[in-house]
């Protein structure tokens, strides 16, 4: 299927009230799903899988199989694992207001190393790393409230 064919297929579907459409043959498979204000188009060929999630009501068109990645932005796939808060409280990056933060992005942390403090009911709870890894992202800002299960750090295990 080339781009023109895909475009006219989408146009045709938009003119009906079809909400989901799938077409498969020996070489290709295309699935078009309409959900409220979003169109999701999945196009799969033996070589590549391309997914787009356009925001507006207009459908975006997927390039044909084999072309290099001139893609519309796909959601970034997050690497690493998240470290979540085991309690409800306030997140602090450092042991004291004028002290340096426990960790920075890019830093390698060892198992048992303190990553941050969560203050709950006047008690400072140290949150430790459960394994060796690299800090990819710090998800909360200093002095922000956190709830149970909320992501604090994204860490790539080493």
């Amino acid at each position, binding site marked *: 299927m080339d781009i023109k064919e895909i475009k006219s297929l989408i146009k045709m579907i938009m003119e009906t009230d079809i909400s989901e459409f799938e077409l498969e043959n020996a070489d290709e498979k295309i699935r078009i799903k309409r959900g409220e204000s979003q169109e999701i188009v999945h196009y799969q060929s033996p070589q590549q899988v391309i997914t787009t999630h356009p925001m507006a009501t207009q459908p975006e068109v997927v390039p044909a199989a084999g072309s290099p990645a001139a893609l519309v932005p796909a959601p970034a796939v997050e690497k690493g694992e998240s470290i979540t808060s085991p309690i*409800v409280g306030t997140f602090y990056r450092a042991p004291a207001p004028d002290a340096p933060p426990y960790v920075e992005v890019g830093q390698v942390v060892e198992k048992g190393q303190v990553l941050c403090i969560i203050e*709950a*009911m006047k008690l400072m709870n140290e949150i430790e790393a459960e394994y060796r890894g690299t800090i990819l992202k710090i998800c909360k800002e200093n002095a922000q409230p956190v*709830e*149970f*299960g*909320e992501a604090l750090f994204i860490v790539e295990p080493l």
Partner: protein
Amino acid sequence: MFHKILIANRGEIALRIIRACKEMGIKTVAVYSTADSESLHVRLADESICIGPPPSLQSYLNINAIISAAELTDAEAIHPGYGFLAENSAFAEICENCGITFIGPASEVMRLMGDKISARQAVTREGVPILPGTKEGVKDGNEALKVARKIGFPVIIKATAGGGGRGMKIVHSPAALPNAFATSRAEAQAGFGNPEVYIEKYCVQPRHVEIQILADKHGNVIYLGERDCSIQRRHQKLIEEAPSTVSTPELRKAMGEAAVRAVRAVGYNSVGTMEFLVDKENNFYFMEMNTRIQVEHPVTEMVTGVDIVREQIRSAAGLKLRYRQSDIKINGHAIECRINAEDPVKFTPSPGKITAYHTPGGLGVRVDSFVYDQYTVLPYYDSLIAKLIVHAETRDDAIKRMARALDEYIIEGIKTTIPFQKRVMASKDFIEGNVDTGFIERAVLE
């Protein structure tokens, strides 16, 4: 008045409290376990904080997490609902120490009235009748036998720290007593961590009639009539009504005034319920006091027109009661069915996804529920999913209305107690008002 209240509960009572707060212009904070993230109380509150994983001990009973959540959101008061931490005096005390208003009685009053032995002593001082029985825990087998002979068999041995119908043994003869006494102590230790037991006269086929009281922080106390909760299975209420079929204006006044006297004497404030046993001669005996809002409060709301949760919040905020005793009138009759996610014959829990849901409506029908179509009933918490309440001019009309409403109620995908409650509404005994606490056992055996 409070600017913001945190609701330390879930399910239908959390929704009930949020509704009252919304109507009063008070902002609401919901707390929830990870299992409840799609729950209605979370969606309808202004703010919500996840406080833990599904098990209650780590979430809805997690005092640190709840107080933390209140501090993070600047909530000035916490409403504990019923169950969970509602009658936990340590929690009430921690709130007091943290400068957060606990919507309920003061911690030391809760402690006094929550302990069955000290409560019995406190009410006796005010001339409230109690079942003949021991005023303190019974120390040993010899004393137990002496006491039981004095009271007169049959007697019931109860754990001081027990509740919810657990830790109770009926003894019909002196020969059976020593063994029953020893076993009760062992069971009480195992079940509640406290082996202390006391002995009371056992009322055969008693009615469970309770008085709703409302008190402010200025010494004003009134009663809002009675409820009859005699339809119980293993001491768990399934159907409640107001007024009671045994009630007369004189009995209501006597019980109500006794409750008010006792409650005023201990310095109680907020809402509470005094439970009585009523025997065949209409003698009433104090059983225990529940120092919280109760599941069945809607039947009292329907017959008196008083919004009990709103008045509870107003009282906690230090406002005086708006009603005098003479303002309270009982109009018509109300019945409530507790719809549990349980098998209607075996009463085993039936969690799962509700695949079709449609509530009844029409004149005099009220549904207090937090479930909705496609909602998944969780296995972690109690099985109450809805309360169906009807109000009508007479008891007969209320029964017909409840039967009609139960017929209209559609809950598919899980089992519920609705078929059982329909049978009760059609039963001759219920219609004639022959309800005592043995009702369900007899019905189930038929």
